[in-house]
């Protein structure tokens, strides 16, 4: 099993969810986050007080899938979340040791 963590642009969330559902992903966790990468922040001005906002809002997806589906999920996110502009995000893939479905006690691939 693989854990796929992706930080993407917030407005791309719905599109990515649809595309992933279409290839058989049955669940994901979503968190609103702030962060920085290559995309620089912006400046906000309040009555002359200027604040550099370095952390920009992103959405973080956490998806656990079987090893077989992993590459396809990464490719789908990469394709769907892409806008060709700086700040489209990053995708990380990690190994997952064990998974349990709380309701039934099923484990690993069966729990996904």
């Amino acid at each position, binding site marked *: 099993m693989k854990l796929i963590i992706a930080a993407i642009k917030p407005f791309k969330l719905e599109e990515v969810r649809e595309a992933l559902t279409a290839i058989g992903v049955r669940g994901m966790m979503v968190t609103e986050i702030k962060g920085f990468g290559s995309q620089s922040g912006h400046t*906000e*001005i*309040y*009555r*002359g*007080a200027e*604040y550099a*906002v370095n952390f920009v809002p992103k959405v973080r997806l956490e998806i656990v899938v079987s090893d077989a589906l992993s590459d396809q999920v990464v490719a789908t996110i990469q394709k769907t979340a892409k806008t060709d502009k700086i700040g489209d995000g990053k995708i990380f893939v990690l190994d997952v040791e064990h998974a349990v479905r709380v309701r039934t006690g099923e484990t690993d691939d069966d729990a996904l």
Partner: protein
Amino acid sequence: MSNQIKLGLGALGATLFASLPAWAQEATTEATETATETATAAAELVPYVYEKTVHNGDVAWMSIATVLVLMMTVPGLALFYGGLVRTKNMLSMLTQVFAISSVVCIIWVVYGYSLAFSYGGSMDTYVGGFSKMFLSGVDATTLVPTFTNGVWLPEYTFIAFQMTFAMITPALIVGAFAERFKFSSLLVFSILWVTFIYFPMAHMVWWWGGPDFLAEQQTLKLIAEAAGDTAAAEAAAANLAANGLIWNWGALDFAGGTVVHINAGIAGLVGCILLGKRVGYGKESMAPHSLTLTMVGAALLWVGWFGFNAGSNLEANVITSLAIVNTFVAAAAAGVAWMFAEWALKGRPSLLGLVSGVITGLVAVTPAAGFAGPMGAICLGLFAGAVCFWFVAYVKNMFKLDDSLDVFGIHGLGGIIGAIGTGILVNPALGGAGIPDYTSVPGTLQVGAYDMGFMLTAQIKAVLFTVAFSGIGSFILFKLVDLVMGLRVKEEVEREGLDVAEHGERAYNM
């Protein structure tokens, strides 16, 4: 435009005569003549007799104006300030404004009204006395003069209206040292400040006998002079001069530019310098936590300001109408000026800039509301909006001044521009309403001769006096409170936020 206003005042005079049956017929004829002719005809003068008429319309309007000013304070000012601070200090702003208003409300009827609006004996030029403490002598039958001969207002109405001014002024100051002032010290400071600064200022600017008293004394003086009775003439002359210090200088302040705005602006400036910057100022983001609420507060302030400015006329008449138009256009002009200045120089038109401009315009038009013409009020608004933007966006940063919510930049500076501008824009040649003159023709309101040198001198003197009085007085009071109980919260309290540390609650539990 100026002609219309003059006609308006003339019509006002004419209505008055109709409503004053006790007025001698020959006096009516004299009223149309000039001051010098009146003086020569003094031998024929009869003592000025008047009736006190209360108009239901005036009472209704003033009751509404009174609660409009309360709406400016709570919720208007509280939300305007609250939205501008960080989430962790939201409740502290709301509590400070609400608490100061409530405390001053009680103080006002206990001794504040007396200190501001009663005869002060040997100190009468500077402050009132204690004769009306606990509203002693005031009941449902007592009346106060308005600005029109023969037209009076229930004293309770006047007390309530002026009470709202005393409530909002110390609440304005708290924006300057937002997010770091100790609540207990703030209450003590506010009580001392209204007692030693606000009440005397109100007395010095607004304490006068009223049009009927002036007409009566002026007539007595002319009669005494004609009869060669110098003692009686001197007594009458002394009565004519028994007004507040700044009133006697001839300075014009329609709705409290000096008493409220410059006064609070300077106190705020002194306070923020003495307290020092907020922890993390210039390093951490101190962006407003809710400009939505700030906009709601600013809008409530704008609406309430009609009560503040037009209500200061104390009657529902032509000058009320003028003050309402001026309060509209000056605010809009300053908002537009600030927005375009910011757009041109900072790249974007911001909501905060727009609403700050509107408040600046309201501040600037406060002393001018019943004196300037509408075109004059627009010019005043445009000028104040642009200058205050420049101060807040550039000059303040040069001095590294943490006047957190720009009490000085908006109320102090805007008030000074308004006060001096009033001296220029009152000129009938510029569309102004002219200087009210109650004594040239006792018993009817005349438009006095405009002398720019005199007017500007009077206005600048009033501004300088207010700056010095409020500046030095507030400095002493801040120092006193600091010595006894300390002004500032501990650093960890400031970091945690005043809401939880001082009030034990959070603005948003989500």
